[in-house]
């Protein structure tokens, strides 16, 4: 058992941190937080800097952690331009990979994933967008809600219903790659988010959008399984975003307390020290859970239970730590960069599966594991 990052990863972390400190200045972060405009210059700089190596998921993980530690809004906006690409990597044809993944990796293209609908969030199988076979392809109708990168994306990976469910709601779903310049696609930017306001969020409407058959991802009818597989990947990245936000809030809290006090937190009263001690402990626990879940996933042996634990716990940690950070720093925290962390943190408990959904997954997986163990035991004894 090893708890050290490799030298290459420590180097990636250092470079990411240097870039974030240099480029994601409080002024830039505040500007995009206020205007809700996407930081496209920052994205270009991040790609040009060479620190975004999407071929190594560990590097992306630590880079995302360091970006979010400095600023979650601009950080996520500049690194999550490939959101959903694992679906193409895992289930796409060679042709699809060539056409769509190559421009993504170079920063030439932006993508997004369109699953959520106005009436179907956690309940993925409740989606209503349809794709109907027509001639050589499919025709998509429906609309998608809260789509990250929605307005910027060159293409989206879209979950649709291709057949009525045969008694099981999650059957009959299929995934398509849809070019956003297709006729019949319209997009409306959604404004007024509580946090991560530098990220772009949109509602996408598909009105008789024709999609060629070659844009079907994987097999027809297996969409639900693909999306769940993807969530088991993306939840790890959300977990690390939350860890980064929490760590950044602790960093800023320590700085503010040192500055207004004696220069060292050691002279603070016990109430302050104990709160800081608990914040630091939770962050470390969330980080370890996330790294463990990641190490299994990156060895192609994901553990959905651990992944959901990491995501739910890290998200709650981010909310808890940013709240305590404001309590400890008072007016200065409120009128500084900590208030943004507090607003950014809350989305971690919502996107990619709410904390409630994660906890259900954890308990149900434990239940399945126990039943399986029991079956094996009784199978062995007879």
């Amino acid at each position, binding site marked *: 058992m090893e708890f050290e990052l490799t030298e290459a990863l420590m180097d990636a972390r250092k470079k990411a941190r240097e870039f974030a400190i240099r480029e994601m200045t409080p002024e830039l972060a*505040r500007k995009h937080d206020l205007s809700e405009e996407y930081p496209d210059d920052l994205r270009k700089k991040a790609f040009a800097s060479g620190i975004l190596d999407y071929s190594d998921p560990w590097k992306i993980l630590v880079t995302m952690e360091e970006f979010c530690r400095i600023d979650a809004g601009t950080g996520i906006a500049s690194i999550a331009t490939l959101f959903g690409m694992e679906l193409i990597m895992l289930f796409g044809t060679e042709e699809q990979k060539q056409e769509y993944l190559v421009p993504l990796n170079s920063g030439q293209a932006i993508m997004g994933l369109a699953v959520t609908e106005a009436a179907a969030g956690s309940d993925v199988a409740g989606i209503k967008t349809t794709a109907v076979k027509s001639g050589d392809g499919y025709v998509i109708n429906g609309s998608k809600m809260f789509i990250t990168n929605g307005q910027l994306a060159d293409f989206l990976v879209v979950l649709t219903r291709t057949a009525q469910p045969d008694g099981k709601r999650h059957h009959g779903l299929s995934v398509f790659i849809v070019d956003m310049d297709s006729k019949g696609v319209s997009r409306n930017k*959604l404004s007024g988010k509580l946090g991560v306001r530098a990220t772009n969020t949109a509602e996408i409407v598909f009105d008789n959008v024709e999609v060629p058959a070659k844009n079907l991802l994987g097999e027809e009818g297996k969409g639900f399984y693909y999306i769940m597989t993807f969530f088991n990947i993306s939840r790890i990245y959300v977990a690390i975003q939350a860890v980064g936000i929490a760590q950044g809030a602790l960093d800023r809290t320590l700085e503010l307390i040192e500055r*207004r006090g004696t220069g060292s937190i050691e002279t603070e009263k*016990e109430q302050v020290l104990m709160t800081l001690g608990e914040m630091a402990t939770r962050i470390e626990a969330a980080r370890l859970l996330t790294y463990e879940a990641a190490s299994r996933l990156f060895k192609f042996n994901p553990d959905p239970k651990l992944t959901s634990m990491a995501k739910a716990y890290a998200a709650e940690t981010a909310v808890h730590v940013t709240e305590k950070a404001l309590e400890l720093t008072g007016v200065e925290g409120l009128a500084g*960069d900590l*208030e943004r962390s*507090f607003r950014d943190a*809350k989305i971690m408990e919502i996107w990619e599966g709410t904390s409630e959904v994660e906890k259900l997954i954890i308990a149900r997986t434990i239940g399945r594991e126990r039943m399986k163990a029991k079956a094996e035991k009784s199978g062995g004894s007879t």
Partner: protein
Amino acid sequence: MMAEEYQLLRSNIRDFAQKNIDSIAVKIEQGGLSPETARSMASQGFMGARIPTEYGGTGLDERGYMIVLEELARCSPSAAVRVLIVNSLFVPLVMASEKSREILRDVASAKTNVAVDHCGLLEGHSGTSGVMIEGGRARGRVDYVLNASADAIIVAANDPQNSLLLVRAGLRPAEEHPRLGLRGLNFSSLIIDSTDFEKLSENGSRLIEAAVSDMDLEVAAVSLGIAAGALAKAVEYSKARTTFEHPLKDYQPVAFGLSLLRAEEEIIRDFAYKEHHAAAGKTMARVRAAALARNATNQALQVHGGYGYFEDFGVEKFYRDAMALSILFSRGTKDMERLSEQVFGSKAGFL
């Protein structure tokens, strides 16, 4: 007032707030609380809730005033805090000087918009107010002023008497601070350069500090309004929203969680509004109501899922405001020390 009268007052204010404040609550968040809205609140007697009738106010008793604050906060915490700044900070400080009380007429009618430099006394503020008096001018810069677009402000000056000054003109909001909550009110530093000021009293900082400590029940009322507003939205939403083919409310974690918070809301409200309070009781109401507001708004937002994260649904503002209120109108450790001293009967919790 009798119990029925309080009830009538509450239902009247709720009607007004539903019609006139709730409908523009998102606009207040985006563009600030307009002078027009301030005037409409003044016409109902809210702006001068605690101003004596002889100075054009409503002269409400404490409980009546709490109802005003709570019902406004249910729709727009910014609107409630605007009333709070006037009646819990500005009014008691101005009352210290008989000759200055005339200003209260224009405050009650919302003709004059006022602020008090109280944030300098809160935790996490290392700076001091920099207002000096030199040759008949009051000048300097004050950080962290809530409602900084005011026409008049009360500040504690940096002179040997630590004079409490009422500055009537020459205010200019400078650098705007990031705003977590109470976005209907401007929050920025203020440049003061004025010959139009008067001295209300000496020991200004101590008087402002006393006013902040003395508003336990009022702050509790705003916190209760925030909790009640957020929970009402969450209860309604969980009836209407379906997931996995059932309304949210049919699921135990949603129903039990919101029900327990509603229970806490009722219990704290009953406690806060009771007729007689020991000193500790008021502080207890303040700290428990603040904790409820933060917890309830967090869970209310969570029940709304992705929609809760967007301002249109009017629930995220409660989450921001609960936190902002608990920083801008509480004194964290000092409140807890005050409470502990009352509970233990001697100084406690100071090491």
